[in-house]
C-alpha cells in the first residue's frame, strides 16, 4: 500500500486525488499526487519511475556506439539531438574532427527534429486545453518531417542516424528537395496555428498569467529550453555553447519575459520560425565531403571526465561521461531537461485551478521517458 505518499496533515476542506499514472493530461505514465481544495490546487507531487529503464546503468555495459541508440528512447521526440549529444561527447573526447558536411546535416536534422517535436507539442497543447482539432493539424505537419526522416534515416522516430564519427549513411538524394518543400509548406501553416489557437480569446484567457515562473526561480529550478526562455532566462545552449554547424548560422534566441504559460507557448512558436530560418540558411550550403570519419571498431575514450550539453527540443540535455579508458563508460549520466522541468510543476501549479495545472503542464512539454530515463 502506498500510504506514505498520502500526506497525513490535510486540512478539513482539502482532499487528495491521484492524477495518473493513466490520465489523458499526463502524457504517459506520470503520476501526480494532488492535494486539492475544491478546484484549487494546494500541492502537486510528481511520482515518477513508472517507465524507468535505468538507461544509465545499461550504458555502463554498452560500447559507445551502442549507447547512441539508447538515447533514442529517452526523449523520443528529439531523438536525433540526443544521439548527437552522445556522439559529440565521444568525438570531443577522442579529439576527432568530423567533416563539415556531417556538422551541417546534423544541424539541419536537429532543427527538423525540433520542429517536429514542437508540432506534436502544439497539437497536444491544444488538446489539453480542449481544442481537439489542433492535434491533427500538428500531426499533419509533423508527418512531413517524419517522412523526411524515414527516407534518409530509415526510421521515423528512433532514428539512430548519428554514429560517433559522423552519420550512418549519407543523406538521401531527395532530402534537400523534400526539406525545402516542407519549409515552404510549414511557413504557411504557422500563421494558421496562430489563427486557430494563439489568437483565440478563450486560449489567451486560459494561458495568460497562469503558471508564472520568475527568472530567478527558473534558474534555481534548472529550467531550460522554452520553459526557461519563457521566463526571460537566456539559456539557449545553441547560443551560449554552439555545437555542430550552429556557429555558422544566425538566429535569434526566442525570449519572453512574462514567465507565464502563454510566454512558454509563444517561445515555442517563435522557435519554430527560428528553426525554419536555420534550416533555410544551411539547406543550400551542405558542403561536399565524407559523411563520416572511420573510427576504430572498438572506441575507447581516454581516461577522464567529459561533459557535453546540447539544446534538445525540451531544453538542455547534458551527457556526463566518466571514462576509465575502457570500451565502456564507467559512469554515464544524462542530465535530462524534462527532469528539471517537472520539478518546478509544484511551484507553478499551486494556487491555480485543475484546468490551470493541465495547461501549465502542457507548456512544460513533458515527455515521460525523458524524465524516467
Amino acid at each position: 500500500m502506498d500510504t506514505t505518499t498520502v500526506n497525513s496533515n490535510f486540512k478539513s476542506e482539502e482532499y487528495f486525488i491521484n492524477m495518473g499514472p493513466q490520465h489523458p493530461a499526463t502524457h504517459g505514465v506520470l503520476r501526480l499526487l494532488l492535494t486539492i481544495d475544491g478546484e484549487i490546487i494546494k500541492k502537486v507531487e510528481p511520482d515518477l519511475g513508472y517507465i524507468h529503464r535505468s538507461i544509465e546503468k545499461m550504458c555502463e555495459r554498452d560500447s559507445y556506439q551502442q549507447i547512441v541508440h539508447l538515447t533514442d528512447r529517452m526523449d523520443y521526440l528529439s531523438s536525433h539531438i540526443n544521439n548527437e549529444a552522445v556522439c559529440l561527447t565521444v568525438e570531443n573526447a577522442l579529439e576527432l574532427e568530423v567533416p563539415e558536411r556531417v556538422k551541417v546535416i546534423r544541424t539541419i536534422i536537429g532543427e527538423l527534429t525540433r520542429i517536429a517535436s514542437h508540432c506534436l507539442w502544439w497539437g497536444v497543447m491544444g488538446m489539453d486545453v480542449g481544442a481537439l482539432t489542433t492535434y491533427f493539424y500538428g500531426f499533419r505537419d509533423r508527418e512531413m518531417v517524419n517522412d523526411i526522416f524515414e527516407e534518409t534515416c530509415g526510421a521515423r522516430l528512433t532514428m539512430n542516424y548519428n554514429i560517433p564519427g559522423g552519420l550512418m549513411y549519407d543523406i538521401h538524394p531527395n532530402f534537400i528537395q523534400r526539406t525545402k518543400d516542407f519549409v515552404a509548406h510549414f511557413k504557411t501553416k504557422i500563421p494558421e496555428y496562430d489563427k486557430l489557437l494563439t489568437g483565440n480569446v478563450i486560449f489567451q484567457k486560459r494561458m495568460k498569467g497562469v503558471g508564472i515562473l520568475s527568472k530567478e526561480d527558473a534558474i534555481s529550478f534548472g529550467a531550460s529550453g522554452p520553459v526557461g526562455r519563457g521566463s526571460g532566462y537566456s539559456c539557449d545552449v545553441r547560443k551560449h555553447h554552439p555545437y555542430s554547424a550552429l556557429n555558422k548560422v544566425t538566429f535569434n534566441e526566442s525570449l519572453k519575459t512574462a514567465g507565464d504559460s502563454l510566454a512558454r507557448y509563444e517561445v515555442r512558436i517563435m522557435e519554430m520560425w527560428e528553426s525554419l530560418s536555420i534550416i533555410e540558411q544551411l539547406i543550400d550550403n551542405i558542403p561536399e565531403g565524407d559523411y563520416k570519419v572511420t573510427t576504430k571498431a572498438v572506441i575507447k575514450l581516454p581516461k577522464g571526465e567529459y561533459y557535453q550539453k546540447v539544446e534538445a527540443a525540451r531544453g538542455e540535455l547534458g551527457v556526463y561521461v566518466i571514462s576509465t579508458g575502457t570500451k565502456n563508460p564507467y559512469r554515464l549520466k544524462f542530465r535530462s531537461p524534462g527532469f528539471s522541468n517537472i520539478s518546478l510543476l509544484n511551484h507553478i501549479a499551486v494556487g491555480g485551478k485543475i484546468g490551470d495545472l493541465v495547461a501549465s503542464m502542457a507548456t512544460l512539454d513533458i515527455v515521460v521517458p525523458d524524465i524516467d530515463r
Partner: protein
Amino acid sequence: MSYFSNIYNGIKSLLTGMGVTGKVFLNARKGTITQQYPENRETLKMFDRFRGEVVMPHDKENEHRCTGCQKCEIACPNGSIEIVWDRVVNPETGKKKKEIDKFVYHLGLCTMCSLCIEACPTDAIVWAQNYENSVYDRSYLTKVLNQPESKLMDGVED
C-alpha cells in the same frame, strides 16, 4: 469601453478560428491525411532505407554472403543476433573454415538500430522493408535467417 472592445475582439478571434477549421471542412474530401491502411497495402510503399527487419538475401543458387565472423553479434546492443557456427573442412583446399550453421535473429529483441548492418563486412544482412511484423506467438519472432541447405557464396571473405 474596453468591456465592449473585449467582446468585439473576442468574437472576432473566435470567428477567425472557425474560419480555419471551416476551410478544412470544405476541403475535407481531398485534404484527408489519414490512410486507409489494410486496403492500401498494394500502394503503400516504404522508403528504401526503411528498417523493417533484418534479412539475409540469398541468390538463385541458395547462397548467402555470411562468413560467420560474428561482428554483427558483437555490435548488437540487445543480443538479438546469435550465430551458431562450425568449422568445416573444405574438401577442395583441405582448409578448415568457419561456416554458419544457424543465423538466429530475435525480431522481438531488435530495436532497429542498424548497428549490425553497419558492422557487417560482407553485406550479408540487409534491411527488409516489410512492416507487418505482428504474429500470434512470441516464438515466431525468433527467425533463422539463412535458408536450409544454403551455402556461402564463392569469393566472399571478411
